[in-house]
C-alpha cells in the first residue's frame, strides 16, 4: 500500500499550484475563505480560467474535451483547489448533466451542449424535487404532454439551487401514468428562457437566497430535448445521483475547513485564557473530527484506487455522501464553538447594514459562522437524504 505520487503527479501538482497563484485574486480568495457570497460573474470567470488550463473537467473523456485525468491527479486537483480557497465549481453542468450527456446523449445533444458546459457558457440547474416529493422522487407530478414535436410541461419544481442564474434546467417529468411510478418518468432539458417559467426565491435559515421554486406553466419544450428514451428517465436519474453522491463527499473542502478551524483555535482563547487549541475538551472534538475525516479521505482513496484498476464505484459510494455530509456539518458546529459569542450574529442580515466600523469589533474569521452552520443543515437532506442513502446501502450492499 502506498499513496506516493509519481514524478508526473508531482509535476501536475506544481502546475495546479502555479495556475492558482496566477489566476486567483486575493480579494476572491478572502471572500471564499470567509464564506462570503461569490457572484455569478466571479464563478464563471474562475471556471473559464480553469477550462483554459484543461482543469475544469478532469473526469471527462478527451473525445469530449475533458482532461481524462488519473485518479491520483483528480485527487491532487481536488485537494489543491480546496486548500487554496478557490470558488467551488458549480456541479450541475460539468459534474452532473455533462456525464449524463456523454453517456446517454445523442451526438447532436453532445455537440451542442458539451462545449458550452466546458466553457461555462451555460449555467445549469436541476429540476428534481417537487413540493410533496422530496426524497420520494418517483412520486413527482410535473406533467409533460406530447403535442406534435413539442412537450407541453406543467408543474412545480422546488429546492432548485441557483435557478435564478440558470440558462438551462435538466428536469424529471412524468410522461406516462401507467405502470410503476418510476416507469413513466422522462429526463428532459429545458431552456430557462422559455415562456411560462417563473423562478421564485426561497430564503433559507441563514437568510440567503440560494434555492428557488420554479413554476412551469404550459412550457413548450422540443421533443429532441429528451435524454435517452421517453419513460426511461429513471435510469438516467439514478446514473446521475450516483455521480452526485461521490462529489457530494467534499473531502477537499472539509480538509480545508478543518485547517481554517485550527487557525481559529490558534487565536481564540478558552475560558481559562489559554489558546483554544490547547483546551482538551475542544481538542478532543477536533481530533475526533480529524479522525472521521481521515477515514473518509482514505475510503475515497480506496474507491479511487479500485477505479484506477477499472472497477466502477457501486452503491457503497453512498457512505461517502453520509459521512461527508455529517462531517461538513460537524465542522461548522465546531467552528461555532470556536468563535464563541461571535458565532450567533446574523451576518447575512448585518452585511446589508452599515458596516463601516464593524471590523474593529469582530475578527474576520468569525464572519458568517452562523450562516455556514445553518446552511450546512441541508447537506444531510439534499442529494437523497442520509436516511435514503442508508436504505440504499441496506438493500444494495447489505442485501437486507
Amino acid at each position, binding site marked *: 500500500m502506498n499513496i506516493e505520487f509519481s514524478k508526473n503527479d508531482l509535476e501536475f501538482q506544481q502546475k495546479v499550484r502555479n495556475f492558482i497563484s496566477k489566476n486567483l485574486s486575493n480579494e476572491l480568495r478572502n471572500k471564499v475563505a470567509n464564506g462570503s457570497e461569490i457572484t455569478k460573474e466571479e464563478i464563471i470567470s474562475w471556471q473559464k480560467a480553469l477550462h483554459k488550463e484543461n482543469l475544469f473537467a478532469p473526469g471527462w473523456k478527451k473525445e469530449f474535451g475533458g482532461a481524462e485525468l488519473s485518479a491520483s491527479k483528480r485527487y491532487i486537483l481536488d485537494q489543491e483547489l480546496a486548500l487554496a480557497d478557490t470558488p467551488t465549481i458549480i456541479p450541475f453542468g460539468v459534474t452532473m448533466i455533462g456525464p449524463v450527456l456523454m453517456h446517454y446523449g445523442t451526438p447532436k445533444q453532445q455537440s451542442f451542449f458539451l462545449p458550452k458546459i466546458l466553457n461555462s457558457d451555460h449555467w445549469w440547474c436541476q429540476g428534481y*424535487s417537487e413540493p*410533496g*416529493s*422530496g*426524497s*420520494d422522487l418517483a*412520486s413527482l407530478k410535473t406533467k409533460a404532454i406530447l403535442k406534435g414535436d413539442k412537450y407541453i410541461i406543467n408543474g412545480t419544481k*422546488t*429546492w432548485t439551487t441557483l435557478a435564478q442564474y440558470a440558462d438551462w434546467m435538466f428536469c424529471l417529468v412524468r410522461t406516462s401514468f401507467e405502470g410503476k411510478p418510476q416507469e413513466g418518468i422522462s429526463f428532459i432539458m429545458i431552456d430557462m428562457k422559455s415562456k411560462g417559467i417563473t423562478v421564485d426565491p*426561497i*430564503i*433559507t*435559515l441563514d*437568510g440567503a437566497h440560494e434555492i428557488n421554486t420554479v413554476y412551469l406553466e404550459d412550457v413548450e419544450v422540443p421533443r429532441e430535448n429528451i435524454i435517452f428514451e421517453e419513460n426511461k428517465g429513471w435510469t438516467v436519474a439514478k446514473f446521475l445521483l450516483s455521480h452526485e453522491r461521490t462529489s457530494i463527499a467534499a473531502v477537499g473542502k472539509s480538509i480545508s475547513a478543518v485547517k481554517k478551524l485550527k487557525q481559529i483555535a490558534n487565536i*481564540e*482563547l*478558552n*475560558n*481559562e*485564557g489559554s489558546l483554544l487549541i490547547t*483546551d482538551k*475538551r*475542544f481538542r478532543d472534538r477536533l481530533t475526533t473530527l480529524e479522525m472521521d475525516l481521515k477515514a473518509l479521505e482514505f475510503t475515497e482513496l480506496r474507491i479511487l484506487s479500485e477505479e484506477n484498476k477499472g472497477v466502477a464505484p457501486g452503491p457503497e459510494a453512498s457512505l461517502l455522501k453520509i459521512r461527508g455530509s455529517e462531517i461538513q*456539518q460537524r465542522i461548522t458546529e465546531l467552528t*461555532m*464553538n470556536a468563535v*464563541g*459569542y461571535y*458565532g*450567533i*450574529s*446574523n451576518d447575512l*442580515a*448585518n452585511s446589508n*447594514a452599515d458596516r463601516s*466600523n*464593524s471590523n*474593529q*469589533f*469582530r475578527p474576520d474569521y468569525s464572519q458568517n459562522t*452562523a450562516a455556514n*452552520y*445553518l*446552511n450546512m*443543515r*441541508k447537506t*444531510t*437532506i*439534499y442529494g437523497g*437524504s*442520509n*436516511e435514503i442513502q*442508508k436504505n440504499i446501502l441496506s438493500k444494495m450492499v447489505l442485501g437486507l
Partner: protein
Amino acid sequence: MNLSLNEEQLLIKNSAEKFFLDNLSFEQRNKILTSDGKLFEDLILKSKELGWYGLPFDQKFGGLGGNITDVMTLIETFGASLHIDPYIFSLLLPGKIIEHFFDEDKKSHYLDKIINDNIKLAYCFAEPNIRFDIHKLNCKVYLEENKYFLKGKKMLVLAADQANSIIVPAIDKDKNVYLVKIDNTSKNFLSNKYKIIDDSDAVDYEFDGFEFNENDILVKLNYDEYKKKISIIFDYLTLAVCSEALGVIEKMYKLTLEYVKTREQFGKRIGDFQVIQHRMVEMYIIKEEMRSLNCSAQVSFSNNDPKERIKSISLNKIFLDTKAKEAAQDCIQLHGGMGVANEMSIGHFFKKLTFLSMLFGDSDYHYKRYELADKI
C-alpha cells in the same frame, strides 16, 4: 415531595399560552418583526398588563413576589411561542443586578422604573477575549485629574438598542468594581449594532477613555463581593435560559411529531417508518429529560446550597448544549427541505435554540464549572 405545578403556576401558564395564541402567531410575529416599533411596543404593553414584569420581584419594590417556579413557568411559555420581548435582558438581568447590588433607595427607585415605567436598562455582561467567563473584567476604570474614565470593550449587549442607559461593569487598579450608568445616546464611544440569529438586536461597545461623572457610578464594591453576587445572578439567568429552551424544544418536538404524522413519502406517512419512530421517541425522551433537569435545578435553586445550585444548573445547561441541540438538529432533518426554509417556523425555533445553547456558557464552560463546584 411535590414536583408538579401548583394552581397559581397553572394559571400563569394557561394565561400566557392564551396571550400568545391571541397575539403572537407565527404570522403576527413576522408582521411585528418587519414593521416599525409600534406593534412591538403594543405587544409589550399588553403583556405587562398580565403582570409579567412584576412577577420576579419582591412586593415591597412593586413586584408580585413570584417564586422561582412561577417565573420559570412563565419563561418556558416564551420559548414555546418565540416571544420577541427580550425579557431576560431588558427586565430580568438589570432587575436582578439592581436587586443584588443596589442600596435600598436606589433599588426601589430603579426597580419601580423598569417594572412600571417604560424605562429600559441593559447590562453589559460580555467582553471579547473572556469567552463565557462572567467573572472576568478587562474593562478598566481610571482616574485622571479627578475625572473618571472608562477603557475597554463590551460585546453582545442584548436589548441595548432600545435601552435608555446601559450599565457597564468595570474594574480599577485596586480591584474595585464599578457599575457605571451610561447614556446610550452619547456619541463619545464607538458602538456597532447588529442582528442576532434569533432576530433580536445586540450592540458592541468600545470605550477608549470615555469620561463619566461620579454620579453615574451606581455601585462600587470590591471584586470578591462582586464575584459572589454576580455568580448567583447568572445562575438565575442561566436557569431562565434553560427554561426558555425547554419551551423551545418542547414545541419543536410537537411541530415535528405533527409533521411526521402528516407528511407523506413513498405512499406512507413518514411517521410510519420505524427509523423515524425511534428518532421521535429519542426526541421525546430528551425533552422529558430536559424537563427533569430543569425541575432538579429549580429545586436546588430554592434550597440554600450553592454547590448543588451550581451543579444542577450547569447540568441543565450542558444538556441544552448537547442533547437538546442534537434533538433540535434532528427536528430540522425530519422536516427535510422544509426544515431549512425560513418561511417555516421550525427553523426559527432552531435558531432560538442555537442562540440559547451558547448564551451564558456552552457545554465546555459548564463542564468546567460543574467540576469546580464538585470539589467544593
